[in-house]
């Protein structure tokens, strides 16, 4: 392990946490922009320090563990949520050389595994809270995330087949001619939807569903434990945006501008799109969500695999 990688290991989580915190402000500003309001614009220039102010506030809030909760698991759940998201960033290649483990030959599987583990955070949180709403939220989260993980994995297979590798760096290199978003447009859409469901963001935020479940799986959480769920959610947005950039939008590749700028630019646009989704779309009913997943997205992703496979076979044969 080189010194550079060690520095990366220290810096990456700090940067991600800072970004996620900043994102809470960015989201509120953007929602304001799309709702003809201004959003928080008072603290610091343009309101950027709002995120810091909120962070300080939540640090000073009482961190209360309900007496009826299962203490150990209750404390563990937000930590899992945070950890899995942060670990996933290890394999995201910012540029060809700058990342902790972009060359990992099972990089994509690693990300999927971490996302799979991320389900435990919400399920355990819902379970350990020992209250109805939290449990319902946790159950919804489990069903939603597990089922969407299926299509997420299947949608990615198209990319993997075209690259012939699970390494995210190879995947980006394979897109030097044409970004995968064109040949893999079906996979792209499925992955995008699954990514939204995976981070349980609006419009697929049924595990939280404020108006029906209180706050869903984190109903009983307060103080910094709630803050961790919150920050993990925003880090999740960054993660999914970075993943989509890497897998479908050519990663760091682009003309003129240097590589990190391209990567940041694409990721930022995607994050903006995530927030636009929140501003524009209402939450579907739970059965609609499941029907969309199993009846539309699953066949679509399977079809995508079959077609991609057939085209690839024809190419190699011809």
């Amino acid at each position, binding site marked *: 392990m080189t010194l550079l990688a060690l520095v990366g290991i220290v810096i990456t989580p700090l940067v991600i946490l800072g970004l996620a915190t900043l994102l809470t402000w960015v989201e509120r500003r953007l929602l304001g*922009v*799309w*709702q*003809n309001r*201004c959003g928080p614009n008072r603290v610091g220039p343009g309101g950027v320090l709002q995120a810091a102010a909120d962070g300080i506030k939540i640090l000073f809030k009482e961190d209360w563990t309900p007496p009826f909760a299962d203490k150990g698991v209750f404390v563990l759940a937000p930590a899992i949520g945070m950890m899995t998201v942060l670990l996933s960033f290890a394999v995201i290649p910012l540029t060809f050389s700058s990342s902790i483990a972009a060359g990992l030959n099972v990089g994509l599987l690693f990300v999927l595994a971490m996302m799979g583990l991320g389900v435990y955070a919400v399920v355990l949180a819902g379970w350990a809270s020992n209250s109805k709403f939290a449990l319902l939220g946790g159950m919804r989260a489990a069903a939603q995330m597990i089922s969407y993980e299926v299509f997420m994995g299947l949608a990615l297979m198209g990319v993997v087949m075209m690259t012939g590798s699970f390494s995210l760096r190879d995947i980006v290199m394979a897109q030097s001619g044409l970004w995968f978003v064109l040949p893999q447009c079906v996979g792209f859409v499925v992955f995008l939807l699954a990514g939204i469901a995976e981070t349980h963001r609006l419009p697929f935020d049924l595990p939280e569903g404020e108006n029906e479940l209180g706050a869903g799986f984190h109903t009983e959480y307060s103080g910094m434990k709630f803050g961790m769920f919150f920050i993990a959610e925003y880090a999740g947005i960054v993660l999914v945006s970075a993943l989509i950039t890497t897998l479908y939008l050519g990663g760091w590749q682009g003309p003129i501008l240097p590589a990190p700028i391209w990567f940041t630019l694409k990721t930022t646009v995607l994050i903006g799109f995530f927030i*636009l*989704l929140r501003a*524009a*779309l209402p939450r579907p009913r739970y059965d609609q969500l499941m029907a969309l997943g199993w009846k539309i997205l699953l066949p679509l992703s399977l079809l995508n695999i079959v077609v991609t496979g057939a085209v690839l076979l024809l190419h190699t044969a011809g």
Partner: protein
Amino acid sequence: MLGNVRTLILTFLHAFQSRVTVQYPEERPYLPPRYRGRIILSRDPDGEERCVACNLCAVACPVDCISLQKTEEQGRWYPEYFRINFSRCIFCGFCEEACPTYAIQLTPDFEMSEYNRQNLVYEKEDLLISGTGKYPDYSFYHVAGVGIPGKERGTSEHERPPVDLHTLLP
């Protein structure tokens, strides 16, 4: 699906519209003259207190936040003290409607924040203004049939002299 895409585009286009937010402390919203804000006690055109301590406002107040005590000076009634607890007032304006003398009036001013709740209790000195408020010409004692120093009974506007009861005797 297409509907969703349309919604996304339309929502995005909102970014280019003008903001509806009024950036309050720098930019002030227009408050109409009949806005119901801070309450004042007005004076009549002669510069005397209008309030006659009739207690009607206190009775009308749904949250019982007006407290006053009547006192009398040569036939004229005054409130000895007049207190409004603005931490309870809901600015409904019922007091203004109940008042027979136009003494109590609501004004277009809402900037009365305090760090100390006790400071929201306004005394008569705080409430009384030197002008007539919304009704510049009205003076209760000029139309009411009570006698006060400088105005005998029967000399009010539109008032006939009092009937001498003795002329009615058989």
